[in-house]
């Protein structure tokens, strides 16, 4: 059951928030010992929130579609009075005094928080194999990673331990786990959702967004969390749209760009074929498909890495005297960033404007761009390389290859289910739109979702 269905049942008195919450907590009890999606489960807190939601709904006080819905937050979101570890020993005892902006908004919308999800340490990696809190396991194959860094959020939603979980995306950390776990993961435009109260990994590349079962659920979550925050300098005053796609979405006349370069090179044949099938489906639904050439994505990825390494190392420099408490892979990247020159950082931020202008030119000709979200599906836990064709690639660099550049742009993008590989591991379609075009992005995705049933497939737990 998704958020939209649960919200309808709540209003038809067919269920209660307490029942929904108890069912989620029961699934956490049953499955989380194997999946390890949560660092902290807030059962009593959640049941108290659920009872309050039931009382309010019974009294006719309706806060909207998230009212009474069990959700989870990645453990990078500050929550008042509830431990927020950032998946790190450095913050193992950190109990914030105040909620972050997103938590404030979700609680104001009546959501019920069942817990804080496990993640890649400091949100700095793509496996969510956390050395301190244990590896998150992919509900589709417990031997595989769920992707990261928001792996616990995706695993929790895939295992139906909550109806949605917030993630953060600095170099594809929402879209990768969504793709690997057969979910929808939305990275909104930079500045669309406030970053206040979220431990920064990378000031200029961090994006906050939901991981959900369906596109319309993602729209509900964006609606609840979007908007200007005067306390976040990077927050945008751009007006918030009505993001919910209509019941029947038409793709008639929508211009879809499909790259002829880069995105279909060096990928698993299944990732290629599933993406192309979604392009054909869109065309069959009336969309106009245009072949486009994208700028040098590897150059964009390189600039994004220079920025990420520099900003993350700057943010974490104060903890270098405690490096023994930081996992090996994360510490290696923190070390790399300390070697880069300030001039390289500034020039990467200057190059960013050049790439943005090149992509804005593309979005004058098309409304959205379709690409695979990742070159392969999820790989086994502990595997540091991935074989694609005859080439062994670094798993982190390969997995972020198609999505990292979009963080550099700051444009909105999502991953949605589009099929499975030969091991029956999920694959994702990435859809990219122009700045603040989330409404259009979600409408296109909803049209595809309505015409397929990939999102209805459940993991074999």
């Amino acid at each position: 059951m998704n958020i939209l269905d649960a919200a309808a049942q709540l209003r038809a008195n067919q269920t209660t928030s307490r029942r929904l919450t108890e069912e989620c907590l029961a699934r956490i009890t049953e499955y989380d010992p194997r999946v390890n999606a949560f660092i902290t489960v807030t059962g009593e807190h959640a049941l108290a929130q659920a009872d309050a939601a039931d009382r309010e709904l019974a009294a006719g006080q309706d806060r909207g579609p998230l009212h009474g819905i069990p959700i989870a937050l990645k453990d990078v979101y500050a929550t008042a009075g509830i431990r927020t570890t950032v998946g790190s020993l450095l913050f193992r005892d950190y109990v914030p005094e105040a909620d972050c902006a997103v938590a404030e908004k979700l609680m104001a919308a009546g959501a019920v928080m069942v817990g804080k999800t496990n993640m890649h340490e400091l949100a700095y990696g793509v496996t969510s194999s956390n050395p301190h809190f244990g590896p998150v396991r992919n509900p589709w194959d417990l031997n595989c990673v769920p992707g990261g860094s928001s792996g616990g959020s995706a695993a929790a939603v895939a295992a139906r331990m909550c109806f949605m979980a917030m993630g953060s995306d600095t170099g594809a950390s929402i879209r990768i786990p969504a793709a690997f776990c057969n979910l929808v993961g939305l990275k909104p435009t930079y500045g669309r959702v406030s970053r206040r109260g979220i431990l920064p990994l990378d000031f200029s590349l961090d994006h906050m967004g939901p991981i959900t079962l369906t596109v319309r659920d993602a729209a509900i979550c964006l609606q609840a969390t979007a908007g200007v925050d005067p306390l976040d300098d990077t927050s945008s005053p751009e007006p918030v749209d009505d993001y919910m796609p209509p019941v029947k979405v038409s793709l008639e006349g929508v211009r879809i760009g499909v790259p002829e370069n880069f995105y279909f090179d060096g990928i698993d044949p299944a990732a290629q074929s599933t993406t192309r099938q979604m392009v054909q489906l869109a065309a069959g639904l009336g969309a106009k498909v245009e072949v486009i050439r994208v700028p040098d994505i590897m150059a964009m990825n390189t600039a994004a890495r220079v920025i990420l390494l520099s900003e993350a190392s700057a943010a974490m420099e104060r903890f270098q005297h405690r490096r023994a408490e930081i996992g090996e892979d994360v510490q290696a990247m923190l070390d790399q960033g300390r070697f880069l020159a300030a001039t390289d950082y500034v020039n990467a931020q200057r190059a960013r404007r050049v790439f943005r202008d090149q992509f804005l030119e593309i979005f004058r000709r098309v409304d959205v761009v379709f690409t695979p979200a990742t070159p392969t599906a999820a790989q086994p836990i502990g595997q540091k390389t991935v074989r694609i064709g005859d080439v062994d690639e670094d798993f982190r660099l390969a997995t972020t290859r198609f999505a990292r550049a979009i963080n550099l742009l700051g444009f909105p993008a999502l991953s949605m289910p589009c099929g499975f590989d030969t091991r029956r591991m999920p694959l994702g379609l990435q859809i990219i739109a122009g700045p603040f075009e989330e409404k259009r992005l979600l409408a296109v995705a909803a049209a595809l979702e309505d015409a397929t049933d990939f999102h209805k497939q459940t993991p074999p737990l």
Partner: protein
Amino acid sequence: MPNWKLIAQARGIEVSAEEMDRLTVVLNALETAWAPLRELAPHETEPAVAYRLSRQEPQA
């Protein structure tokens, strides 16, 4: 390629010899990819970092 070991010494980056060897491989690869991009942006292009000011309300 930059002499990463000297840079480490100059900046007080304390890593083991084994870690330094691993870092050198990664940093060389990044340098190879990044070097052609250093001068990509036209001279007048400003960096895309956020710093905004607004008028402060006078205190009551």
